[in-house]
């Protein structure tokens, strides 16, 4: 098994002097390929900071963070951006589809940024939308889609780049419980196909659907439990 995310004694602080805040305080984790991990914690526990680090959106103040084998501290903005594009598939709470852009191009956009020719990128995007049952909505813009449909498009966008991991930040937070359940079913299915999924949530019921739960409190890992297969 190869390691997708590796954190060694990671500290992340914000602010300076007396107003300094330790968001993460000596965190160690390893996430292997094919895992389905939920990172759980109350607000202020450091899970957003954790997400930003795993998502290659930020660098640690101290300690080592490796994503897909790359040490984040050694990467400049350009390389960090490329790593995000190649290794991470983001799924956000509020879907974050691009405005004024149809579903097909929303899914194709990460490939555009990678330099894939438009025709090929759209072909792949269409395949991914088809896989998620959204093919007939490919011309719709986000305003013309329901929350569940938007999240499916967002998941298609996350998957289209064949990333090392899917990083989902409260993916069901803006959905009703039934639609949220369907999204979680989808994640379970994807994980069975071998896709690594990291879920950030404060909702324990959602976290229970993952196979491993890492609980954060005040920037420290207080629990790391795995389902027994």
């Amino acid at each position: 098994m190869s390691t997708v995310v590796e954190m060694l004694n990671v500290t992340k602080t914000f602010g300076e002097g007396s107003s300094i805040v330790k968001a993460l305080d000596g965190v160690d984790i390893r996430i292997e390929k094919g895992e389905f991990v939920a990172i759980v914690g109350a607000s202020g526990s450091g899970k957003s900071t954790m997400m930003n680090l795993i998502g290659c959106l930020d660098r640690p103040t101290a300690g080592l963070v490796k994503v897909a084998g790359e040490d984040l501290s050694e990467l400049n903005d350009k390389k960090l951006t490329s790593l995000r594009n190649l290794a991470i598939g983001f799924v956000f709470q509020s879907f974050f589809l691009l405005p004024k852009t149809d579903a097909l191009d929303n899914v194709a956009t990460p490939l555009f940024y990678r330099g894939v020719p438009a025709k090929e990128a759209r072909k792949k995007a269409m395949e991914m939308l088809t896989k998620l049952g959204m093919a007939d909505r490919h011309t719709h813009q986000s305003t013309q889609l329901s929350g569940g449909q938007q999240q499916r498009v967002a998941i298609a966008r996350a998957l289209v780049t064949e990333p090392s991991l899917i990083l989902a930040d409260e993916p069901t937070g803006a959905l009703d419980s039934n639609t949220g359940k369907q999204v979680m079913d989808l994640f379970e299915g994807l994980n069975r196909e071998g896709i690594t999924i990291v879920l950030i949530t404060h909702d324990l019921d959602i976290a229970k659907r993952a196979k491993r739960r890492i609980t954060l409190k005040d920037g420290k890992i207080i629990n790391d439990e795995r389902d027994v297969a």
Partner: protein
Amino acid sequence: MNILIAARLAFSRIIATKTRSGLTMLGIIIGVMSLIALVSVAQGATSGIQDQFKGLGARNLNITGTTNQSLTTDDVKEIEKLSGIEIVTETVSGRVTLSSNEASTKAQIIGVDQNYKTVVDPDIFVGSFLPDVTNASDARLIVLSTTLATDLKLDAYSIGSSIAVGSTEFTIVGILDDADGFGTRGTAYIPLETAFKYVAVPPYLSSITVQTTSEEIVPEVTTNLTALLKARHNITGEREADFVITDASQLLDAIGTVQQFLSLLLGGIASISLVVGGIGIMNIMLVSVRERTREIGIRRAIGAQQSQILTQFLIEAIVLSLVGGIIGVIIGEVVAYFLAQLGQWNFALSPTMILASLGFSMFVGVVFGVWPARTASKLKPVEALRFE
């Protein structure tokens, strides 16, 4: 991300925010419109004059006396002996009152010889120019400019009728087309010999026009003419000559300079409004960057490089200014067309001017788009994503 996709994004964004884009472009539209219209006025107005001088012919040299008694008919006889000269025509002029049955007016009367028609080739509106009257002793024939004919309350049917030049009756043989003849307004033409009888004192001439055999020898002939006339008029050393020789090229050069100056002046004024339009674009783009902070965050998260965000916003600014420029060119040309109708000069589409305007508006887009685009590209993804 290739440029095409960025351009398409920019277009769809502009269409999606029609009103705002339209208002943003307005500055550029007005700027380019005034640039095109004003420069076309400068060029149209002066090229009309230029064409008329070209009508005088590039082979023609015009000699004018600086006093009433500088040039004489004997000068002409000597000039005709010079080499490289095709034809010479001489004129005299005087101011006389013309009277028809219904009106009278002061006019410039020019006496011309039979060569005048060949050299100057005046445009006839109705009737004909003066016939060859070399052997007639007292040919009281007259050709009027349209302006004069109008002042005298005459019309096209007046050909063959008579008017009084001073106290002498002349027969009208033709009316000139003023629109095309420079300096013909308010002018009447009569045969040279007749002029010497009624309006001028022989042997003094007011001007001599020389047509050379080719354009290339104009400078050479000018030198020879100057030497000849100086010798004949006993002008030696530093004394100033009592005549001036001009050729079309000097006039064309002078008009060209005026045209350039006018174009630069008017174009400069119009450019200021283009710059103001550019600031308008910058302003809106900065607002747009702020409004779209989260979109920028999403794009950065899914792998947009800073350079790609920069390109996207820059292209948007360029598309705004370029589309504004294109609309401005269209409106500007329409305005220029109507101004040309009003001013009675030729309307001509100038590809150089159109391309220059579009180039300039694109330049404005780049210059004023860079700052907002840089601001957008420098946003931190984490903060941009959290932006409400």
